[in-house]
């Protein structure tokens, strides 16, 4: 199947915009980009995690239907921070199965109406109850992974800081990013401690925002686009909710399984991937993801941050949107925004952050500490 339309709202602290406003803007934007009419959308998936708690509204399907004036089935998809990636995977399945010719996926989250401490507690609904009871939040859980990684492979806090610096550089080229400005290694290292060894600037922010994509059948994409973008690989896998149930803390097995599925269905090798969007909720997460996706051997992902090959202009740039770290992390929107970034790159519409000659891109989305993971591979039509 192909991706005919994409749209991303500005990410950030959008105090003048409601959840409904953001969903509607993204949905209308993607449909317009696809060059089709509302009535051609046969099904809609809305990716969201916390609207019940943070926005006081859980019936998002009906909310979007009312605003868009559509009567097609609208279904909410929830898989924590991987809600967007899972919605894309399910939309792709619907089209592949021949159920629909055009499916709209809208990912959205409105997070800044409440204070950060309450939002952090709400997010712990994506972790094990035993973990939440200890006072851990997601920073603490990923801090445990970072401690294990440091001990085994000798990486340092400075290596993690390089991830944040690189992703902020990319975000400085992205007008829709939450933090469109650069930071230094010194600023990261001097930022307040949250959970050792992670500091404030190792963490993705709490953001508002939405993103949308219109997935269509092969027949339809060929009519709509001269140079279509195809989803050629899709993978989704699960793992335990609690970290303590894992064999080790150095790898997310769900990512490995999802990547294996995606590469198998695409029939492509990792060497053919030109650019990657990975789930860098915390700086350590980007390093683990690059290893689990197979781009680097275990224990070497942090070296790639030192030599610049993951930066714009490098061998295989990572998180050109700015990633979750600097583009922002409106939870339900994140997985869809990654797809938006890849499509922009493959179309040659990524502006200052464009990778020249980009043909194949990969998007990786994670829920919780790896309880859910999705991987999608997108390819530009010849």
């Amino acid at each position, binding site marked *: 199947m192909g991706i005919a339309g994409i749209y991303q709202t500005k990410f950030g602290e959008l105090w003048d915009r409601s959840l409904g406003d953001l969903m509607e803007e993204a949905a209308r934007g993607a449909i317009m980009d696809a060059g089709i009419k509302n009535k051609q959308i046969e099904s809609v998936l809305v990716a969201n995690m916390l609207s019940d708690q943070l926005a006081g509204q859980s019936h998002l399907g009906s909310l979007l239907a009312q605003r868009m004036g559509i009567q097609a089935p609208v279904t909410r998809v929830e898989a924590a921070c991987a809600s967007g990636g899972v919605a894309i995977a399910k939309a792709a399945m619907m089209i592949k199965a021949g159920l629909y010719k055009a499916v709209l996926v809208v990912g959205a989250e409105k997070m800044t109406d409440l204070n950060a*401490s*309450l939002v*952090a*507690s709400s997010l*712990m609904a994506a972790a*094990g109850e*035993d*973990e*939440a*009871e*200890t*006072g*851990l*939040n997601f*920073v*603490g859980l990923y*801090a*445990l992974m970072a*401690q*294990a990684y440091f*001990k085994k492979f000798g990486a340092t806090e400075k290596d993690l800081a390089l991830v944040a610096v690189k992703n902020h550089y990319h975000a400085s080229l992205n007008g829709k990013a939450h933090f469109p400005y650069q930071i230094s290694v010194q600023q990261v290292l001097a930022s*307040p*401690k*949250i*959970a*050792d*060894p992670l500091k404030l600037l190792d963490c993705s922010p709490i953001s508002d925002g939405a993103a949308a994509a219109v997935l269509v059948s092969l027949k339809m994409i060929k009519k709509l686009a001269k140079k279509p973008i195809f989803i050629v690989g899709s993978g989704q896998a699960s793992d335990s909710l*609690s*970290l*303590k*149930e894992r064999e080790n*803390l150095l790898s997310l097995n769900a990512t490995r399984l999802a990547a294996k599925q995606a590469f198998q269905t695409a029939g492509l090798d990792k060497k053919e991937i030109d650019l990657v969007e990975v789930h860098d909720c915390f700086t350590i997460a980007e390093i683990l993801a690059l290893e689990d996706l197979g781009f680097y051997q275990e224990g070497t992902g942090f070296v790639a941050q030192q030599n610049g090959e993951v930066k714009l202009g490098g061998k295989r740039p990572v998180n050109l949107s700015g990633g979750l770290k600097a583009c922002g992390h409106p939870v339900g929107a994140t997985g869809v925004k990654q797809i938006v970034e890849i499509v922009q790159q493959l179309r040659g519409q990524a502006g200052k952050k464009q990778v020249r000659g980009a043909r194949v891109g990969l998007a990786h989305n994670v829920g919780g500490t790896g309880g859910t993971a999705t991987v999608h591979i997108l390819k530009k039509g010849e």
Partner: protein
Amino acid sequence: MAENSPVKIWREAKKRYQNLGKTGWLTWFTKVWQGPAGFEKNSPFWVGMVRLRNNRKVTSQIVGGDKRIAPGVKVKGILRILNKGGEKGVIEYGVKFKTI
């Protein structure tokens, strides 16, 4: 952390104390400087993963002082208040691990 209902505390009571008195070793740990809602007054505090003698793993707050917390240190499950106050006034007890 949201206040647990008395019913939930009662339902989970057996499970809640199963590690009381058990010993094991600290594997991975972190010092949480800014805890989530409900833990602000306790910050900073230590949380770690403990491998018990029966090889089961537990995630728990680690008490006993900064200087004693290190990889592989021996720990023991002790009774502690996990949460108190809230609208229903329930004092919630559970197990934390202390360095020994």
